[in-house]
């Protein structure tokens, strides 16, 4: 339907936060006033993965026009100039940046995000949705597993276990009752691809789970979604209701004897529940303590029954694979890592957002291509943090590492769920390590001693180092303790928690040395190691620091060097953030 005129408005969590609902309402009003309400269809879509306040696409005789940073007050002008006048409304037209961000991507799982109305099953079907189910339901179940196996798809939640093999294990496991679980407990700070998929294309996940159910012979499924994602849960509920109404879910799917039902379980806030055995315990209504494997969930999972657990992105890959064939999927990626991966690019890059690229791209390509380079040109890249609290920091010298499971593991980091946080010279690597350990200490379930006690000791040492109390002996302790925790913890949380410390120690030894030997923080992040004095040579006497100070500790008069009153200073670093000239040390 290329002739249909429509206006797409991005209304995911980010779009709504930027005032998207008011933009939508204003379009309704102004289109009606201009007498164009019947001509253009207004469609609310999910976030497209690039944060540009509210994004609006107008598709009409002018082709497809994207407007970015749209404020509610811009809507009248867009309607008057574009819709009525037939001309581009230049002030909000998306720039080259926007188009480059998408041009360098290959979108398979994000294809529908920001393009279709996630609360409308017809739009999903029009984009090819549920075609895979309609074809697969009449074929023998093993064909589905064979297709997924042949595609080379590996688990996108971090582990990278071959998905087809997992399906096979579950299918082969003896048992009348089997379960499918979707792990939507996206807890890695810095990863938000699962949220975008659930908000932007929930039917893809639902369809992927139904296909998995057919393949392994499960009739019940659970989506375990973190409660921090209320919009994702709401949209999943809509998708499940619609799919049930159309006979894709529930008893006798598409009038066959096969059945599959889906329930949503809202998490209650525990990072460790991303670990599959802890997640199962949580669905069972218990504390989310992991248990040792084997038995694997494929043999004995939810309520002791064979259970298949995959994450959101993995399930979202399944319908396109079944629809287009294993070979089509396998053309993307590398020998051992097939397909695409969605990365959540964030931190100090120009374009932050979700980037889907074929496996095997280099980190440099991601940062310079879709990322658009560094946020502040004069501050060079210092490191890239991959894989959240379980991952590691890679220095600028390793930017040409390809992103596939094996290459990343070799560096000491892990692919993880795909969080990629870019840091410039204003980030302190010791502080970053401390930050992650602080997180894992809080989230450790406490079952294994090395993880519960060992991480806490590591945190105390790191805090000492950051506050200028560190000694060289502390560094030996950190590496030794890190290795012990890795080898002696039961679950993935403990086994990977020391990674951020070990990788930063490996790649940034000089920064640790500066902290323990010279009592200096080269990035001026660790407040106790910063003097809070203004450098006469660098200061241009602009007064930005004085204005930013919440404690009135920076004295400044027009044309004069700013002075920091150490008695009043609360070491909040507002002045350092405000100074564009690195004049405060």
């Amino acid at each position, binding site marked *: 339907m290329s002739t249909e005129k429509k206006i797409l408005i991005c209304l995911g*969590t980010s779009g709504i936060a930027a005032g998207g609902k008011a933009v939508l309402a204003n379009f309704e009003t102004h289109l009606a006033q201009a007498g164009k309400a019947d001509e253009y269809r207004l469609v609310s879509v999910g976030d497209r993965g690039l944060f540009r306040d509210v994004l609006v696409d107008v598709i009409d005789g002018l082709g497809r026009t994207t407007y970015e940073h749209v404020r509610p007050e811009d809507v009248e002008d867009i309607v008057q100039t574009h819709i009525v006048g037939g001309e581009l409304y230049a002030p909000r037209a998306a720039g080259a940046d926007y188009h480059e961000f998408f041009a360098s991507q290959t979108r398979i799982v994000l294809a529908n995000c920001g393009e279709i109305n996630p609360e409308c099953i017809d739009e999903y079907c029009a984009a090819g949705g549920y075609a895979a189910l309609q074809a697969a339901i009449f074929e023998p179940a093993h064909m589905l597993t064979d297709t997924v196996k042949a595609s080379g798809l590996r688990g996108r939640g971090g582990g990278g276990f071959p998905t087809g093999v997992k399906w096979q294990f579950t299918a082969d496991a003896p048992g009348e009752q089997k379960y499918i679980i979707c792990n939507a407990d*996206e807890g890695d700070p810095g990863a938000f691809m699962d949220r975008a998929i659930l908000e932007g294309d929930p039917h893809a996940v639902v369809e992927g789970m139904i296909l998995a159910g057919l393949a392994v012979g499960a009739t019940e499924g659970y989506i375990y979604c973190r409660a921090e994602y209320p919009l994702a849960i709401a949209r999943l509920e809509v998708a499940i209701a619609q799919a049930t109404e159309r006979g894709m879910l529930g008893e006798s799917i598409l009038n066959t004897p096969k059945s599959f039902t889906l329930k949503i379980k809202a998490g209650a806030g*525990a990072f460790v529940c991303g670990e599959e055995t802890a997640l199962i315990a949580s669905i069972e209504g*218990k504390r989310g303590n992991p248990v040792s494997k084997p038995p694997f969930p494929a043999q004995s999972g939810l309520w002791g029954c064979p259970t298949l657990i995959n994450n959101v992105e993995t399930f979202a890959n399944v319908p396109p694979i079944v629809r287009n064939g294993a070979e089509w999927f396998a053309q993307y990626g590398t020998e051992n890592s097939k397909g695409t991966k969605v990365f959540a690019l*964030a931190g100090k890059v120009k374009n932050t957002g979700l980037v889907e690229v074929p496996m095997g791209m280099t980190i440099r390509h991601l940062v310079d291509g879709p990322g658009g380079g560094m946020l502040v040109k004069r501050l060079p890249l210092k490191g890239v943090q991959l894989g959240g609290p379980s991952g590691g920091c890679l220095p600028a010298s390793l930017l040409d590492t390809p992103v596939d499971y094996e290459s990343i593991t070799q560096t000491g980091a892990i692919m993880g769920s795909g969080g990629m946080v870019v840091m410039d010279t204003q980030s302190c690597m010791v502080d970053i390590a401390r930050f992650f350990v602080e997180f894992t200490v809080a989230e450790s379930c406490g079952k294994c001693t090395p993880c519960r006690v060992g991480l806490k000791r590591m945190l105390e040492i790191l805090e000492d180092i950051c506050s200028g109390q560190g000694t060289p002996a502390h560094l030996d302790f950190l590496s030794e303790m890190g290795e012990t925790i890795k080898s002696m913890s039961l679950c993935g949380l403990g086994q990977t928690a020391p990674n951020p410390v070990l990788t930063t120690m490996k790649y940034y030894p000089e920064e640790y040395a500066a902290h323990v030997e010279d009592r200096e923080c080269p990035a001026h992040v660790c407040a106790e190691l910063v003097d809070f004095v203004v450098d006469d040579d660098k200061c241009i006497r602009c007064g930005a620091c004085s204005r930013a100070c919440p404690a009135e500790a920076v004295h400044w008069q027009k044309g004069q060097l700013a002075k920091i009153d150490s008695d009043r200073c609360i070491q909040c670093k507002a002045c350092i953030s405000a100074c564009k000239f690195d004049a405060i040390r």
Partner: protein
Amino acid sequence: MSIDITKVESILAASGRGKGVLIPILQAVQNEFGYVPREAVDCVAETLDVFPVDIYGILTFYSQFYLEPRGRYTIRVCQGTACHVMGSKEVLDHFSRQLGIEDGGTTEDGVFSLERVACLGCCGMAPVVAVGEEFYGAVDMTKADELIATWRAKAEESE
């Protein structure tokens, strides 16, 4: 403070008795009261025939459950990686100073509770702060002050 126990009873009546119902029941109780009161724990324990200690085990394990009443609006300051790199620690400290409460605390007037959260999943908008259900991006100290003023005014208005 005594609570209206019939509300707990109706939650229990509306819920099934099958496997895995305990956490959803506790979530419903918290939605009703804003926290999980002691009387509610006793009532749930008796009805489901479990020990109260097992319920406290769950309540203290998951960070979303509260055992004390909360402020009217919860200010959640994201401390995810992207937010951390963009200065969210300073934002959290600023809220803490301005409101005079620590992470997890509630202001004396009962308007605000302050909480650090691991990740709100909007890393592109870092540093992110959520007040109630509303999300705010690129929050610095100035914007933090504005948020406190806006929401305090809202609280006074609705009183």
